[in-house]
């Protein structure tokens, strides 16, 4: 401790620089480690590692078309990632983004077919709002069960994921009310004015991701710049301290849970506007769970989530090309995601390892010298 105070200024500066670079470096190292283990798996399965990795990267960023695809793939997980982050920062483990996403999507798809002839921007807002409202309502149930009856939210949201899946499947099944004459188990297509148009030529990219970025910024403002957000984070950080300081922890938790559900719901509705134009049975291939990985990799912060969602979207898009060219299964991406989660969750940090190593060395030295001193005294 005393040593630290004696440090010259440039040492302090150097240390803080190393700290901040290290903070950036850790997720990157996690990704590199995951890719390394991934290439070992590719090698084991007997495919060309170099071809697989290059086609993975080129398939994600190679041209405008694949770049646009990557951003499209990044949009839903940006939202589910934000949903997880808001809850996680508030002390709730919401792995129910999957169900909230589904419910939001079908609400958006339904509203999207109702009012023909509304102006586009107004109508899109309505569709997204519908998604948000139903997503939030779907999250309200586990929230209220948690604070009123003390039922742990994890089990309940997992059950609600399944219930949402079967319920939405029923809504678009042959006996369901939302089928409305379409031949597939799906809702009819939404009005053309609801759907986003590509903004660049030769690229399917649309305005969806940018709306997502704006919403991410709004979430940052809510969570870090408002009283309500502060309370949510305080509850997440230390429940008892928050309660003692007079925060209504229960109310704050419900708010956070519903905000989280609303975000996932918007993600679902956005997917309707931006890609599919209608809801079909089995709409989400696990976006809710991917959002957890996205959020963790981005340090549960909106800015980080923007970056990590692009990364995950790119991984998924590139994987398609990898499967075609190198023959490695798309599901390798899941393995990569899991490895990234493991590396990030174990908080393995280069800076920490190095500083620990130095500390150990220093301690050994001092203990050696003190030993020799003692010896000398004798």
């Amino acid at each position, binding site marked *: 401790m005393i040593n630290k105070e004696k440090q010259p200024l440039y040492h302090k500066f150097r240390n803080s620089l190393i700290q901040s670079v290290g903070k950036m470096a850790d997720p990157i190292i996690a990704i590199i480690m995951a890719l390394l283990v991934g290439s070992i798996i590719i090698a084991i*399965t007997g495919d060309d590692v170099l071809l697989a990795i290059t086609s993975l990267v080129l398939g994600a960023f190679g041209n405008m078309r694949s770049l646009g695809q990557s951003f499209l793939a990044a949009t839903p997980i940006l939202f589910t990632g934000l949903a997880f982050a808001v809850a996680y920062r508030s002390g709730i483990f919401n792995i129910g983004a999957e169900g909230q996403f589904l419910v939001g999507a079908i609400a958006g798809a339904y509203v999207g077919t109702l009012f023909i002839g509304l102006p586009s921007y107004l109508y899109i807002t309505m569709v997204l709002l519908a998604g948000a409202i139903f997503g939030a309502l779907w999250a309200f149930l586990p929230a209220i*069960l948690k604070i009123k009856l003390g039922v742990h939210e994890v089990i309940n949201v997992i059950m609600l994921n*399944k219930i949402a899946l079967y319920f939405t499947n*029923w809504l678009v099944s042959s006996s369901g009310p939302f089928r409305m004459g379409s031949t597939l188990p799906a809702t009819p297509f939404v009005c053309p004015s609801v759907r986003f148009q590509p903004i660049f030529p030769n690229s399917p990219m649309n305005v969806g991701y940018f709306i997502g970025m704006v919403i991410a910024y709004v979430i940052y403002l809510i969570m870090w710049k408002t009283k309500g957000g502060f309370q949510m984070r305080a509850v997440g950080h230390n429940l008892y301290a928050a309660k003692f300081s007079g925060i209504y922890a229960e109310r704050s938790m419900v708010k956070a849970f519903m905000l989280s559900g609303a975000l996932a719901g918007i993600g679902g509705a956005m997917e309707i506007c931006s890609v599919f134009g209608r809801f079909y049975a089995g709409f989400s291939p*696990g976006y809710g769970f991917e959002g*957890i990985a996205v959020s963790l990799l981005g340090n549960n912060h909106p800015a980080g989530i923007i970056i990590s969602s692009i990364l995950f979207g790119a991984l998924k898009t590139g994987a398609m090309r990898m499967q075609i060219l190198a023959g490695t299964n798309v*599901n390798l991406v899941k393995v990569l995601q899991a490895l990234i*989660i493991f590396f990030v969750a174990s*908080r393995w940090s280069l800076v920490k390892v190095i500083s620990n190593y130095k500390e150990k060395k220093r301690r050994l030295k001092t203990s050696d010298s003190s030993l020799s001193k003692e010896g000398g005294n004798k």
Partner: protein
Amino acid sequence: MIQIILQIATVNILIATLGMATPLILGSISGMYSELSGIINLGIEGMMIMGAFGAGIISLATGNPWLGVLFGIFLGGCMGLIHALLCIKFRANQSVVGVGINILAGGIPAVMLQYYWGNPGRTPQVASIKNISIPLLNKIPAIGAVFGDINPLTLIALFIVAGSHLLIYYTPFGLRVRAVGHHPKAVDTSGKNVFFIRYVSVIISGLLAGLGGSYLSVAQLSMFVNEMTAGRGFIALAAMIFGKRTPLGCFGAALLFGFADALQMTLQAVGVPIASDFLLMIPYVLTMIALAGFVGKTVDPVALGKPYVKS
């Protein structure tokens, strides 16, 4: 209505209940070991998938389903080891690691199947473990029929329930597992190795989940299909909480959920005029109602989810 009830209320539904409940029994006991020692295990689902995958693939390769089961248990144990390492050594957030395990287990089988068989979705038909009839026990009136047509793995599951009860409540090891979940420091002070006990518990958890998964691929079906656990790991988790983390409680809760599943299937087979999607919801809705209404406040192990730092 009465006719439907009569069609449902046969001994077949008991047999189906025990069959559907087997993976849940093993899964919930698996979760119990982990959580009693203070480690949250959301990865049961993934461990079960790996178990099912291991059993399926080795049964396919060797033609011997029992070898498959052994390998399934082994793979489950490996996942348990990963979980234990990350949670105990690296002190990662335990729920997050569990989710990671599930994602990992969602990916590995498809990649390996593509390599091994060329079809990432499922294996071909594999050798499976056939049901047996137990002499003497099958003569018991009323419930005897259950023992007349029982899978050996189900029988093993029943033994594991009884064995776990003895282990947890009547051996020093069981006492230590429970103590580590409530007050690791006290265990440490008394000279026992907290980390070792937690490692063993989580690995046992993985082994049991692997066995539960194996049941799916070499006993219930005779093939491995991607994502064939279909949320059973999570229901097992709910059954564990419902059963208040006691072996017998877990067993009872798993039977209840198994019954809900069997009922759902029987109702579909009988052809009640309810959409199948709603029937499929029964186990999940039942879980929610059970957790909200009947369990009351569960007493979590005090140190659940908290990594132990030796000072």
